[in-house]
């Protein structure tokens, strides 16, 4: 523990080395968070099976302090989007994300969650969860092996290491905003595109700059 946390610039007397560590607040705060990321019990498709295998004895996610899978979003830190995001399911996923307390992280596990994957062209498939919620780590693979998922989790730990109490959004002045929940209509409706949709009504599709609306 000492090596991981201590600040080499400030020397600790030899006789206190086994009991005392001098470190920064950021470092110990992040160390605590990175070693106890609780994922949500949230399986969508094939990737969920590999996620369960990662949690099982052979790959043993507990080595990273992440074995505490919580069935409720209220107690979870990390949402592993493990599988194909369909239009029928995406309203629920966004609601679950909104229900998670800050600090919260999202991992897109596998090709489907990252960008639609092999099913991208399907009429009921959302091309990647990042169209709706912000993603912290993308894990490639179809499905990613447990090793790949663990690598992704280590990348998330690195990301947490780089955050600072001074700048993180959940201690900021403004409350973080909920993502508007998509609605199921004749096709999936994104409330953020309401104006664009209203303008399109009764018209042939026109070419617009899509970056603006995303």
């Amino acid at each position: 523990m000492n090596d991981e946390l201590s600040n080499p610039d400030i020397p600790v007397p030899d006789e206190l080395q086994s009991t005392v560590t001098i470190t920064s607040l950021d470092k110990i705060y992040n160390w605590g968070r990175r070693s106890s990321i609780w994922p949500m019990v949230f399986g969508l498709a094939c990737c969920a099976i590999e996620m369960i295998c990662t949690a099982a004895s052979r790959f043993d996610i507990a080595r990273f302090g992440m074995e505490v899978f919580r069935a409720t979003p209220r107690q979870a830190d990390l949402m592993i989007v493990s599988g194909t995001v369909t239009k029928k399911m995406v309203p629920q996923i966004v609601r679950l994300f909104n229900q998670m307390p800050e600090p919260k992280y999202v991992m897109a596990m596998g090709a489907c969650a990252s960008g639609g994957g092999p099913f991208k062209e399907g009429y009921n498939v959302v091309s990647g969860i990042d169209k709706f919620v912000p993603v912290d780590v993308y894990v490639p693979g179809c499905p990613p092996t447990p090793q790949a998922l663990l690598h992704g989790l280590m990348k998330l730990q690195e990301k947490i290491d780089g955050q600072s109490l001074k700048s993180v959004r959940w201690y900021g002045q403004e409350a973080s905003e909920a993502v508007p929940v998509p609605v199921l209509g004749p096709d999936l409706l994104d409330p953020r595109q309401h104006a664009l949709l209203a303008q399109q009504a009764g018209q042939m599709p026109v070419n617009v700059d899509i970056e603006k609306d995303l």
Partner: protein
Amino acid sequence: MVEKNGTEKEQDFNNPDNEVTSDHIIERFNGDISADTRDGYQGYIVSPDRFHEVAKVFRDELGYDYLSSVTGVDYIDDDHIEVVYHADKIVGGEGINFKVQVNRENPVVPTLVPIYPGADFQEREVFDMYGVHFEGHPNLRRILMWDGFDGYPLRKDWKEAYYEEDVKPFDTRWPGGQVKRSEADSPYGKNVSYPPDFDIDNWSPETDDSLYESLQKTDPKGKSLQTDSIVVNIGPQHPSTHGVFRMVVALDGETITDLQPVMGYLHRNHEKIGERNTFLQNMPYTDRLDYLASMGNNFGYALAVEKLMGVEVPERAQYIRVLMAELTRIANHMWAIGFLLNDLGAFQTPALYAIRARELILDVFEATAGSRMMCNYMRFGGLARDFPSQMRGEDTIKFIDDLVNNRLPQAIDELDHFLTENEIVRSRCIGVGVLSAEKAIAYSTAGPLLRASGVSYDLRRVDSYGIYDRFDFQIPTRSNGDVYDRYLIRVDEMRESAKICQQVMRDIPSEGEIFTGKPQYNFRVPAGESYGRVENPKGELGYYVVSNGKANPYRYHVRAPSFVNLTVLGELCKGHKVADAVVILGSIDIVLGEVDR
């Protein structure tokens, strides 16, 4: 609901003189039924007017008492939609298929639910995908897509938002060496499209009110204590639903009065994508149907297309196919048992033991096929590759020998030893979710669900495929049809599978071809229809493939055992406590990739 008279059926089989043949039927229904004479097609075409009568005769007089599959095909050039039914005799023997053709503008077909209750969800799927109205269906609403969705996606003239061309490979897939994203073509930057007259400001979403109202509630009359019914949604995000599955449950206290499954949360359009793909491109997609049994899925699809192509599979490849299919069965049942125990409240521990055994099998898959789960291993006419010489620092053959002779049987015994006589397992499982044999057949259930109810129906026997006829194994059955028997049947089946694997390793030729002919990426398949099926761990997995002589399937339908098995879920749960619904669902063993496809 079931109107069948069991004794009458038996008489037909015992007196061959009295047996009604299909020729008699054609004569009797003069003009309303005819043989399907198109090139490469079999079966009968029935007119919708007397469809009910004909189906009853098929069931009661010809003995086709088990309706395995219902699906549709849109023959847009002939301007009709065809609804295709496959039926079997539960005692074994050749199956039958019959079709109803209706026009595309106003397709109406009489429902078969009163004759074969197992048609319920499958007819709803045809309605959802093709817009065929099944007259008299008790609950005809969309099943995979949501109410209010625009259009019938599997019709040939319906195009998805990212539509590029009718068939693959697309010209645009690598334009000038640049990556092209489909999002760039959509004004919304997303995979969405709306009808041209859609007016968002004067529109309101569909609600689930009608679904909630359709549930059967308690009748307050005649009860001394006034109670209220409540409706509870279990899922789609719920730890016990084995994926994204939703059960809408009407409760009286803790007792279930009605249960309606809602699915489609993982509907990822296998069939629409499959009809754009080339035949071979579909092979990796089959892995992702029942993703706990990908080798079995490969097997079924390979069989269906091989039937059309008429290719033979070399000897050694046949043995490896059987070995892989049986290892898959053990891996799947391990998982099913582990997670059934999870549902019973033995959280995690039994599952850890089961997963540990499954990992050994996955190692074989990874070494041989290159992937743990998505094996993409079988080809039309053989296999993708042979065993590697070494795996995990050992000789591969030695590793597999040890696995099937020692390690897997030990793992099975271990589970059996810890669980079978366990007091809690017994008290939670015995007598819960009882399914009678008659109901199991009528509701078209398959696999362990059917055999736990005492029906000895296993495609490896009744419609033997591959080289299963060479092996010595039993088809285990149990008689009570409750959750406990469904658990026991899985243990029995794992033992039988291990036995088959041992025989494979004993008899397999040590060398030989594993593929017939030259491997090809794109090839034409002779026109016609084909129904290839295997006994997957969860039941009968069937592929209905129609080819029009081109390089892409004209129709690609998957008869998924998990999906059809769910038809009976509501019936099984009625009268039980809400905690038992979770266990009953676990004992059916569904995988959502296959339920929703």
